[in-house]
């Protein structure tokens, strides 16, 4: 059982499966392509569950490690492994992809095989990013991921898709090349591209600052943090539903994952030094972008801005420990911030994915994302309304949903650090509730405003299944987050160990 190369399987099964799906690249064979894509994604999901069942929660060590020489000339290895940070993200990826394949089932009629194959390839690459322990391998997956997303937004997107997709590509590409230079620099210092070796690499204060900034550009664009977030609303609005879901649920997590895997452990002193900077950016994202979300008239844009605001919580949680350490001299309570941020990552994956799927359900029927085009949907689509309200509550951080756990933990940690940081962070509970619930009020409740809404039909079985699955995930994580926290715990403790010991 455990001698299966599980990580390689969750990377390569979807990619090879995608090639099979591509072989059905004609309109007559589209049904076959869909079934094939579903089978591949479900198989990968099941494989990734084996990662959970076989996971040893007592150790922060990398597990399921695979290591083979890849480019001996540069000492690059095909080196895979997961810990408590990356394993849940892999499961989130495979889970979301199954839903995305289902969500595109009847909706995507144009080049269905290519659509499905793109998402399968993306799943493989994303799993690769989370599993890679060699930084070149990481970088290859990280960049390669842009290619299928570029294609997905560009082919199946909305009217301004070309602008959005090129902006998306160039922004991310621009960010990551600095990371590449930083990685090469560290390779020259240590003679190894292994991420774990980089964690041990002693670096001076100046070098750490530069490396930290290089990583910050790469990850801040991906997260995205204010002020380099502007590609996200464009990409989200123009992307097809599946693309938005993967963008929000997984791709944004790549950036925050990067902070955990690279910035914090490799440059702990620079992180402590510049924590105020990242925290400021995070607070701006939380508060200012929250207000921006309030002003949106396009549902997808609203959720996109809400994503940026929620990701601000994640980055805040990552850097709060440094302030706690500075104020109290100990790291007690710091784990809360990091774990809260990580729960928020997973939870946001479910919730934002669900929100985009809900918008997709409406868009498929009415072909409009404008809030003003709706009104009184509840009376025509009661089941849909129930789900939409649940996800909106989760997005606003209502206790009992997954959205609450992460935000609450981060705010608690923030109180340990500084009252005003906590105060500003907590304001999201109000702003977030305001923009989400106001949108729900205008779209779902009230009188039926027009004929289009009058003709709406409620969820079909496929849509019901997708939303119900997500609803279960959101509620389970909300009331019983222990299994997730248990997995993360040793890794977080180890991470705190790493970031509290200076490299200088």
């Amino acid at each position, binding site marked *: 059982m455990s001698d299966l190369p599980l990580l390689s399987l969750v990377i390569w099964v979807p990619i090879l499966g995608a090639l099979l799906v591509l072989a059905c*690249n004609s309109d007559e064979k589209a049904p076959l392509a869909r079934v094939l894509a579903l089978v591949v994604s479900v198989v990968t999901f099941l494989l990734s569950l084996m990662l959970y069942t076989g996971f040893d929660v007592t150790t922060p060590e990398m597990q399921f490690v695979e290591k083979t*020489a*890849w*480019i*001996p*000339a*540069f000492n690059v290895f095909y080196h895979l492994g997961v810990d408590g940070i990356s394993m849940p993200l892999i499961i989130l990826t495979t889970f979301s992809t199954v839903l995305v394949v289902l969500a595109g089932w009847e909706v995507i009629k144009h080049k269905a095989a*290519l659509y499905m194959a793109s998402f399968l390839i993306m799943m493989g690459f994303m799993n690769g990013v989370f599993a890679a322990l060699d930084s*070149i391998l990481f*970088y*290859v997956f990280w*960049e*390669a991921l*842009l*290619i299928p997303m*570029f*294609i997905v937004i*560009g*082919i199946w997107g909305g009217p301004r*898709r*070309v602008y959005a*997709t*090129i902006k998306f*590509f*160039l922004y991310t*590409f*621009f960010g990551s*090349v*600095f990371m*590449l*230079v930083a990685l*090469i*620099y560290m*390779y*020259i210092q240590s003679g190894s591209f292994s991420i774990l070796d980089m964690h041990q690499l002693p670096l001076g204060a100046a070098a750490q600052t530069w490396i930290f900034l290089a990583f910050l550009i790469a990850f801040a664009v991906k997260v995205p943090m204010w002020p380099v977030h502007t590609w996200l609303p464009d990409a989200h609005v123009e992307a097809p539903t599946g693309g938005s879901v993967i963008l929000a649920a997984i791709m944004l997590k790549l950036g925050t994952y990067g902070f955990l895997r690279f910035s914090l452990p490799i440059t702990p002193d620079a992180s402590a030094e510049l924590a105020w900077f990242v925290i400021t950016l995070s607070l701006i994202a939380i508060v200012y972008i929250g207000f921006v979300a309030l002003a949106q008239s396009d549902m997808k844009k609203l959720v996109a801005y809400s994503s940026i605001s929620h990701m601000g919580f994640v980055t805040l949680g990552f850097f709060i420990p440094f302030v706690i350490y500075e104020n109290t001299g100990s790291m007690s309570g710091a784990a809360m911030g990091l774990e809260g941020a990580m729960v928020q990552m997973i939870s946001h994956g479910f919730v934002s994915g669900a929100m985009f799927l809900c918008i997709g359900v409406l868009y498929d029927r009415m072909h409009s994302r404008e809030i003003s085009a709706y009104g009184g949907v509840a009376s025509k689509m009661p089941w849909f309304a129930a789900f939409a309200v649940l996800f909106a509550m989760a997005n606003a951080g209502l206790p009992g949903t997954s959205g609450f756990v992460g935000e609450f933990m981060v705010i608690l940690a923030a109180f340990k650090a500084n009252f005003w940081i906590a105060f500003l962070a907590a304001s999201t509970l109000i702003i977030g509730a305001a923009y989400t619930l106001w949108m729900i009020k205008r779209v779902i409740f009230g009188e039926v405003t027009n004929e289009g809404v009058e003709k709406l039909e409620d969820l079909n079985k496929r849509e019901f299944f997708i939303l119900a699955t997500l609803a279960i995930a959101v509620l389970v994580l909300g009331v019983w987050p222990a299994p997730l926290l248990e997995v993360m715990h040793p890794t977080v403790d180890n991470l705190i160990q790493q970031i509290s010991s200076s490299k200088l």
Partner: protein
Amino acid sequence: MNFEMPNFVPAIPEIFVLSMACVILLLDLFVTDKGRILTFLLSLATLAIAAVLTITLHSGEAVYTFSGTYVADPMSDLLKVFIYLTTAGVMIYSRDYLLQRNLFKGEFYVLTLFAVLGMMIMVSAHSFLTIYLGLELLSLCLYAMVALNRDSEVSTEAAMKYFILGALASGLLLYGMSIIYGMTGSLDIAIVGEKVMEADHNNIVLTFGLVFIIIGLAFKLGAVPFHMWIPDVYHGAPTPVTLFIGTAPKIAAFAMVMRLLVEGLQGLHVQWQDMLIILAILSMAIGNIIAIAQGNIKRMLAYSTISHVGFILLGVMVGETYGYSAAMFYVIAYAIMGLGGFGMIILLSRKGFEADRIDDFKGLNDRSPWFAFMMMILMFSMAGVPPTLGFYAKLAVLEAVVNSGFVWVAIIAVIFSVVGAFYYLRVIKVMYFDKAEDDQPITATTDVKLVLSLNSLAVLALGIFPAGLMALCMTAL
């Protein structure tokens, strides 16, 4: 005076190519237009046998002959094999194109073979004179080839421009060589190397000579500010000739840089390092920025070549073996990518339709998903996006640059490669996101389709498993 018979063994591939070129020249007089396929096949066979000869004679160490003016070393063997490969690719891609345009003449093949001979001499030259000999043999063939379509005004204009500027550059190079000769008293690169090493690296006359040599090299490579001819020649020449100029001669020019700067003038490294940095940064900047404004894909690829040359120079600039092997890896990678890129233009063209505007690629994904995918691989590779060969080429050069302490240069280089990504993305954009203007089926012959697919898949496969080619480049130096 004793006459000693030189050792001909290291030069057997050259002698073979020369003899075959003469045989084909004669034979071609006697074949009819229908039988000209024989010329084509014989030329391909010549390249194949030359490759076999080069590989069999490969000894793993440098063998000097002709009184030290000629050398066969691992680097020359490796570069020659890639010159044969890319030239064979050029011949296969262009056969149908030439047939359709009434250009399927013996001259094309004979000139190509002579050009190959010129490149082989450049690669293996070990004296200023032999370098110059090879360079002129190559250049004269290329001038004539650009004008191959003699009824085309654009082509003749391009050929004239190329000829005049090329002659000027050769003159400058020769002038530089003569100054160095005057200072060192030798044309033999090994002896020049020793003498220059002993001399003071601030020696004004040596530096003066170096400047002229760099100008000549920069012209032949197409580095800014000596790049003016590139866009016009690439645009004006018939696509198969563009394909040829854009690929194999870059490999030979790289060898020339290695022989002159690295083996001959290593003693002046501090001097030429600064010059190469300036040339490289300018090339990356101007090449990438101007490429954005191009509507003609041949011109766009011409400017993109200029930016790639910038990267190659960065690798050489480092001045250490790891830098040279990175640059060599880059130049080989570029030859493979360029071959595919220009080959794709030939694939889409047909009688009376050149397919040389970017708009001609519109909707390619609807017309032929397979070749749209192939072109996408090539474009991403040129942009340096993994998992393609182009990424590792950039990685290798950047590694060398950072290793030598020039982190700021590496940062400039990556910023311009982001700028460059934009115009490659535009090609992908028109292929995938736009509606086709042209719904004619792709008429290329099966051999072109097959080889082009292999070419593009090689870019992907070498991107997933780059270790072998990298190791080859490492061991060759």
